[in-house]
């Protein structure tokens, strides 16, 4: 009853949005689609929510085929598009009531499912949706997507443009929804959110790079990763990139993440090299790879 995608391809005129995508989402799983902008995440969501036909391949959602049984899918999934798509000129309560009515249900019937979320925006229930703050809009959109007790929930970049505190809250809400037996497919460009999913698919340029649990993806990071730090960040990066044995160099917060091509790499050699480039206060230490490092490694 989860989601099954087999060899899905989709192109727009010249651009190939999705190329031969296959993956399975188990029932009651919180599955993340992680990828940068333009990777094909939204196209994939639109196919799975029956808004778009795939050029090739088949997909089922909650056991229904996305092309043949689209009507059944529309009854049993909740979709929250990346762009706020509720009626701006209806109030919070009117929006919720409207979507409940369209699905042939009432707010009361499924109130316990949305209670945790809705209770936070209930004080503003007479305010027009267009006048809500970003975080509140997102909670309202989630409430509306859940009002008919969907089996599968699609969230397309739900946390884009949301502040860090609201993002954290949002993921906690998703975890609670998962416990209520809802399969959740969520896409995000934020790598740090990947660790909160049960399994993730890393996607780029319409292709899936890897599918696994976040822990396994990190564990399979192929080489040793080093944090390098100095007083002059820009000069540090340019110097590292001209180092003959460098494999990958990219900024990561206050550090530069560095990997070397040699298996017997000695950090002291690098330090000597960097000092010769007139850099001072150089620190080099081993660090654990994150999802972002794995993504960078896979995508190069």
């Amino acid at each position, binding site marked *: 009853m989860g989601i099954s995608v087999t060899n899905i391809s989709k192109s727009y005129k010249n651009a190939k949005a999705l190329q031969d995508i296959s993956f399975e989402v188990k029932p009651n799983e919180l599955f993340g689609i992680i990828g940068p902008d333009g990777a094909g995440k939204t196209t994939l969501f*639109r196919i799975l*929510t*029956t*808004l*778009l*036909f795939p050029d090739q391949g088949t997909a089922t959602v909650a056991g229904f085929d996305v092309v043949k049984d689209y*009507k059944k899918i*529309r*009854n049993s*999934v909740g*979709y929250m*598009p990346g*762009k*706020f*798509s*509720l*009626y*701006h000129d209806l109030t919070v309560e009117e929006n919720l009531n409207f*979507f409940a009515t*369209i*699905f*042939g249900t009432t707010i009361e019937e499924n109130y316990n499912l949305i209670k945790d979320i809705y209770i936070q925006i209930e004080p503003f229930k007479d305010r027009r949706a267009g006048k809500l703050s970003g975080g509140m809009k997102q909670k309202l959109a989630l409430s*509306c997507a859940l009002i008919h007790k969907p089996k599968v929930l699609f969230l397309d970049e739900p946390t884009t443009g949301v502040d860090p505190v609201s993002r954290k809250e949002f993921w906690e809400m998703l975890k609670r929804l998962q416990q209520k037996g809802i399969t959740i497919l969520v896409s995000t460009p934020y790598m740090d959110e990947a660790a909160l999913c049960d399994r993730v698919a890393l996607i780029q340029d319409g292709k899936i790079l890897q599918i696994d649990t976040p822990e396994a993806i990190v564990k399979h990071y192929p080489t040793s990763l080093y944090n390098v730090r100095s007083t002059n960040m820009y000069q540090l990066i340019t110097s590292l990139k001209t180092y003959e044995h460098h494999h990958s160099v990219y900024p990561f917060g206050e550090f530069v993440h560095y990997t070397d091509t040699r298996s017997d790499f000695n950090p002291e050699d690098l330090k000597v090299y960097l000092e010769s480039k007139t850099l001072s206060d150089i620190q080099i230490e081993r660090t654990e790879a994150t999802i972002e490092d794995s993504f960078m490694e896979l995508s190069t």
Partner: protein
Amino acid sequence: MLPIIFILPLLQLVILSNAATFEVKNIKFGYIDNDRSATSRALIEKFGASTYFNVLQAYPTQIRAGAAMLRGEVDVVMEIPQQFARDLQTEQHHTLGVTINAIDGAAAGVENVYISQIVQSYNQSIIIDLSQISDAQIQPVMIETIPLFWYNETLNYKTFMVPGILVLLVTMITLFLSGMNIVREKEIGTLEQINVTPIKKSQFIIGKLFPFWAIGMALLSIGLIIAKLIFNIPMLGSLLLLYLYTSIYILVVLGIGLFISNFTDTQQQAMFIAWFFMVIFILMSGLFTPIESMPKWAQLMTEFNPIKYYVEVMRMVMLKGSGFLDILPQLIKTLVYAILMNGLAVWSYKKTT
């Protein structure tokens, strides 16, 4: 938004009905009197007595008069030839030169008719004067026409313009609102959210269009009240019949609006296409220019113009008191049109992108 939807069209109704007149008044009249006799002065006085003409001045020559017309100082110049009075006496007939500024062709035509009428009536009076002297035994044979203007006895242009303008307003408002509406949902993204719900196409479309149908009917009601109170337009026929026809007619317009909406991506595109059809519909509706005077192919095109039927029905019912059977042909055509347009609109509306 709602006050705008109602107030602006009704303002238009009041303003346009008072302004959009075919009557041509205050015609600037000039003359060149080469004769300077009592007969020629009597003719010019005839023009001065008419309420349509303002006799401005005499010009000494044709050249001066032509220059004045070029400057826009005069609309009509009449030239009375030399020996006008004498020749009339001896030869019993004469010709007058009349120059009309035809930059506005419609006005020029009307002016020509006015001039002919005045000259004709003058003609009759001098026939009597002249015949007294020489040939009293010859009785001139005179055929006089006495027109009766049925359904609009005083030829009051408001009586036929107000129902027509009301038609335009009801059509414009409903077409623009419905054409804009679904496109707007596309633009702000709500359509995507709606499309993943199990809502049926027909439910969605009825939900979208019914409010505009109601607005159209309300506009008609208020417009009729204004027509009665301000313009005192006769309402001979059954109002119920008018409402019955309008209720079907608005469906046609909404169908067209929805059809436009389905094939456009932005409100700007929808607006442009709606305008395109609106202008053609209005100018070919028979409201401003009679359909009978259009070329054959254009007359054929007007068969597909819903506004034409509505203008016809509105005038027939209000001014003539036509009954159900009289407007049945228009009613049936409109009904077929409504079914066709809405069928096309529902068919072309896709819940997938």
